[in-house]
C-alpha cells in the first residue's frame, strides 16, 4: 500500500466531540482510558480486602490449634480470599484494566469497538463484588473458590457467590468480545498481524478465552444456584445427578481462566523487556504463536484438577499428556525472554525488576505444575499445601509481579507522572524476598501431610516427629506473609505521592517504540491527532520509528 492509500484509509477515524461534565467524564465514561482507571481502582480495593483475608488466614495458622477463628470463619476467609483474588482482582485488572489502558493505544485506535458495552462491562463489576462480599452476612462460602457441591450447598451464602461471580462472568465475556473485534478490525493502517505488539497478541488470545470459556462458568453457576434455591438435582447423587459433574463444568472454565490470568502478563513482560534492554524481543513469532497454542490446549486439560475424583484411567491419560504438553510453549517463551536480555543495554528500572523477578518465579511455578501433571505424583500432591505453593508461585510470582511490572511501566502514560524509582525498588525487593520466603516452604508442608483448607494442623502431625517442624514452618510463612502485605503500603504511598511529587513524564519517558508512547501522557481523549500509519514492527531499536506520520522526535532519550 502506498502512503497516500494508507492515509485515505485512515481518514475515516474522525474525532467525536469531547464529553462534558463530571459524570460523563469520570463516572459513566465511554473512554477506554477512564474505564481502565475505574477497573484499577475497583480491583485495587478488592485486592486490599482479599489481601486482608489472607493475612487473617496466616494469623490463624501461627498456631497448630489456634482458637482465634472458628473453623467456619476460617473456611469463609480462604473461600472469599480465593474467589475475590481470581474474579475481582486478577481477571478484571489484567483484562479490563491493562487491556483497556494499553491495547487501543497500541493498535493506534481511538477507542474500542463498542465503547458503550465497555462502560457497561465495567459497571457490572462493583455490584458483582458487593454480592460476593454480601455473602458474609448470610453464611459465606466455605468450600474454597471451587465451591464443590454437595458441601457448598449447605451454605445459603453460596447463592450470593453464584450471583456475584455470574455478573463478573458476563462482564468478562462482553469485554472479551469487545477486545476481539477491536483487535481484529481496528488496527491502524499498515499494522499487519506480525507488526502487532506482543501485548496486543496476548490481549487478543485472552479475549478469546474470556469470550468462549466464561460461558461455561455461567452455565455451571446457574446450575448450582438453581440447585441451591429450587432444589433441582443437577449435582445430587440421590436423584441422578453427580458432584463430579460440577467439577467437570467448573474446571472446563477454570483451567482456561488461569491462562486468562497469565497471558496478559506474558504480554506485559514482552513489552517491558525490549524497552529496558533496548533491543528487539527475541523470538517474536514463537511468543505470539505459542500464546495461541496455549489458549487452544488450555481447553483440553481441565481434568488434571480431578485426578482423585474417580475418573477412569483411560480418561486421565490424555489429560496428563496434554497438561505436560502445554508446558512446552510456555518454556519457549521463558527461554526467549531470557535470550532477550543477552547483549542488551539494560537499565534497571522498577518495571524491569518486576519483569526479571517474574521470570524465575513463574519458571519455578511451571516446574511444580509439571509435577502436578503426572497422575501418580499428583495423587500424593493433590489438595495439599504443595498445590497452594504452586498456585501462589504462578498467580502471585507470575500474575501479581507481572501486573506490577505493567503498573510501574504504564503509570506515567496513565497519569502523566513517574513513580519514584527508589520506592519502587524497595517495594520490589520487599515483595520478592518475602513472597519467596513465605511460599517456598509450603511445598514441603504439603508433601509431608498438610492438606488444604484446614484451620488446625495439630491432628495431622501428632505422633510424628514433624509437628514441631510444621508449626515452625507455618510461623515462618506467616511472618513473611505479613512483610508481604506491608510491602504493598510502599506502593500505595508511592502512588499517592506521585500525584504531587512525581516527575512529569512527557510522552515517552522510557524511550519505547510502541504506539502508546507516541502521544502525550496522559493521552487526549481521542488518543491521536492523526491515526498512525504503521510501516514495520515496533521492536527494532536502532532503526527509525516505524510510523509514517509520527515525529522521529518521539524516539526520546529515556528519562530512566
Amino acid at each position: 500500500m502506498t502512503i497516500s492509500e494508507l492515509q485515505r484509509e485512515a481518514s475515516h477515524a474522525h474525532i467525536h466531540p469531547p464529553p462534558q461534565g463530571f459524570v460523563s467524564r469520570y463516572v459513566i465514561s465511554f473512554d477506554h482510558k477512564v474505564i481502565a482507571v475505574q477497573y484499577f481502582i475497583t480491583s485495587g480495593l478488592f485486592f486490599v480486602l482479599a489481601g486482608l483475608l489472607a493475612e487473617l488466614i496466616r494469623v490463624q495458622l501461627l498456631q497448630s490449634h489456634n482458637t482465634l477463628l472458628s473453623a467456619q470463619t476460617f473456611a469463609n476467609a480462604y473461600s472469599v480470599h480465593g474467589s475475590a483474588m481470581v474474579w475481582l482482582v486478577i481477571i478484571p485488572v489484567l483484562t479490563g484494566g491493562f487491556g483497556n489502558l494499553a491495547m487501543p493505544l497500541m493498535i493506534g485506535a481511538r477507542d474500542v469497538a463498542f465503547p458503550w458495552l465497555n462502560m457497561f462491562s465495567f459497571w457490572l463489576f462493583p455490584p458483582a463484588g458487593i454480592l460476593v462480599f454480601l455473602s458474609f452476612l448470610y453464611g459465606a462460602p466455605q468450600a474454597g473458590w471451587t465451591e464443590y457441591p454437595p458441601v457448598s450447598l449447605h451454605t445459603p451464602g453460596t447463592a450470593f457467590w453464584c450471583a456475584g461471580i455470574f455478573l463478573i462472568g458476563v462482564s468478562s465475556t462482553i469485554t472479551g468480545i469487545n477486545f476481539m473485534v477491536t483487535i481484529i478490525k481496528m488496527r491502524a493502517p499498515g499494522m499487519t498481524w506480525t507488526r502487532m505488539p506482543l501485548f496486543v497478541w496476548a490481549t487478543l488470545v485472552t479475549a478469546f478465552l474470556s469470550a468462549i470459556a466464561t460461558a461455561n462458568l455461567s452455565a455451571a453457576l446457574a446450575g448450582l444456584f438453581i440447585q441451591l434455591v429450587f432444589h433441582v438435582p443437577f449435582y445430587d447423587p440421590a436423584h441422578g445427578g453427580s458432584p463430579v459433574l460440577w467439577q467437570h463444568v467448573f474446571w472446563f472454565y477454570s483451567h482456561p481462566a488461569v491462562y486468562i490470568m497469565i497471558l496478559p502478563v506474558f504480554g506485559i513482560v514482552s513489552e517491558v523487556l525490549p524497552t529496558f534492554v533496548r533491543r528487539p524481543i527475541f523470538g517474536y513469532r514463537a511468543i505470539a504463536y505459542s500464546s495461541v497454542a496455549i489458549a487452544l490446549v488450555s481447553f483440553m486439560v481441565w481434568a488434571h484438577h480431578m485426578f482423585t475424583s474417580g475418573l477412569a484411567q483411560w480418561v486421565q491419560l490424555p489429560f496428563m499428556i496434554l497438561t505436560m504438553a502445554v508446558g512446552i510453549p510456555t518454556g519457549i517463551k521463558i527461554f526467549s525472554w531470557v535470550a532477550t536480555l543477552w547483549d542488551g543495554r539494560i537499565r534497571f528500572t522498577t518495571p524491569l525488576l518486576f519483569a526479571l523477578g517474574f521470570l524465575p518465579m513463574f519458571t519455578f511455578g511451571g516446574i511444580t505444575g509439571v509435577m502436578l501433571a503426572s497422575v501418580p505424583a499428583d495423587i500424593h500432591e493433590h489438595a495439599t499445601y504443595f498445590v497452594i505453593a504452586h498456585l501462589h508461585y504462578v498467580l502471585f510470582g507470575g500474575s501479581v509481579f507481572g501486573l506490577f511490572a505493567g503498573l510501574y511501566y504504564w503509570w506515567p502514560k496513565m497519569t502523566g507522572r513517574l513513580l519514584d524509582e527508589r520506592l519502587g525498588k524497595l517495594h520490589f525487593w520487599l515483595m520478592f524476598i518475602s513472597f519467596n520466603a513465605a511460599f517456598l516452604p509450603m511445598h514441603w508442608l504439603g508433601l509431608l501431610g498438610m492438606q488444604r483448607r484446614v484451620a488446625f494442623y495439630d491432628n495431622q502431625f501428632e505422633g510424628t516427629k514433624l509437628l514441631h517442624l510444621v508449626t515452625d514452618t507455618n510461623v515462618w510463612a506467616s511472618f513473611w506473609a505479613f512483610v508481604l502485605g506491608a510491602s504493598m503500603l510502599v506502593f500505595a504511598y508511592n502512588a499517592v505521592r506521585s500525584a504531587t511529587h512525581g516527575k512529569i513524564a512527557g510522552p515517552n519517558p522510557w524511550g519505547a517504540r510502541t504506539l502508546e508512547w507516541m502521544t502525550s501522557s496522559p493521552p487526549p481523549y481521542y488518543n491521536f491527532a492523526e491515526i498512525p500509519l504503521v510501516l514495520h514492527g515496533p521492536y527494532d531499536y536502532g532503526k527509525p520509528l516505524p510510523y509514517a506520520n509520527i515525529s522521529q522526535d518521539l524516539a526520546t532519550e529515556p528519562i530512566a
Partner: protein
Amino acid sequence: MATHAVSISDAEYEEVRSHRLLGFLLFLISDTIVFSSFIFSYLYDRSASPIWPPLGVERPGLYLAAVNSIVLFGSGVTMHLAMEAWRHADRPRFNNWMIATIVLGLGFLSGQAWEYSHLHDTWWGTVFGASFFTLTGLHGFHVFIGVIFLITVLLQTRRGVYSQTRYFGLTAVTLYWHFVDVIWVALFFLFYVY
C-alpha cells in the same frame, strides 16, 4: 447508535457494520457455548444413569413437540422471506413476513407453555426434569427475547431508521432468529428423539 446509520459516510458505515457483525457473531458463539455446557451436563447425567428416562418420568409427547417445531422452523422460513423482501425493496411484503414471523414465534412460546403446564410436577425433582426445563427454558427465553427484538426492528423500520443499504439491526435479528432455530434442532433431537 442507530442514528449513525444515516449520518455517517458509506465507508465509515461499512466499517461500523463489519465491527457489529463480528461482535454479534462472537456473541452467538458464546451463547452456543452456554447451551453446549448444559447439553454436556445432560449427556453426562444420562450416560451415568442405568435407565433413561428415570423411573417415574415419561418422555414428553413427541406429537406436540413436532408440531411446535414446525411452527418454529416455519418462522425461520418467514424470517428469510422477510429479509428477501427487504432486499428487493418490497415493503408491504416485508411487513407481512415480519408479522408472520412474530406470530409464529409467539405460537411456539404458547405451545411450550401448554406443554409445561401438562408435565408432571415431580419432574423438577429428577435430573431429567432439571435438564429439560433448564435447556428448553433457556431456549424459550431466547425465543421470547427474539420476539421482542423482532418487534423492535419492525418498529424501527416504520420510523425510517434503516435505509435500503444500511440495515444492520435487521441482519442481526435474522441471524439471531436462525440461531434460535438451530439450537432447537439440537434440543428437539436430544429430548424427544434420542
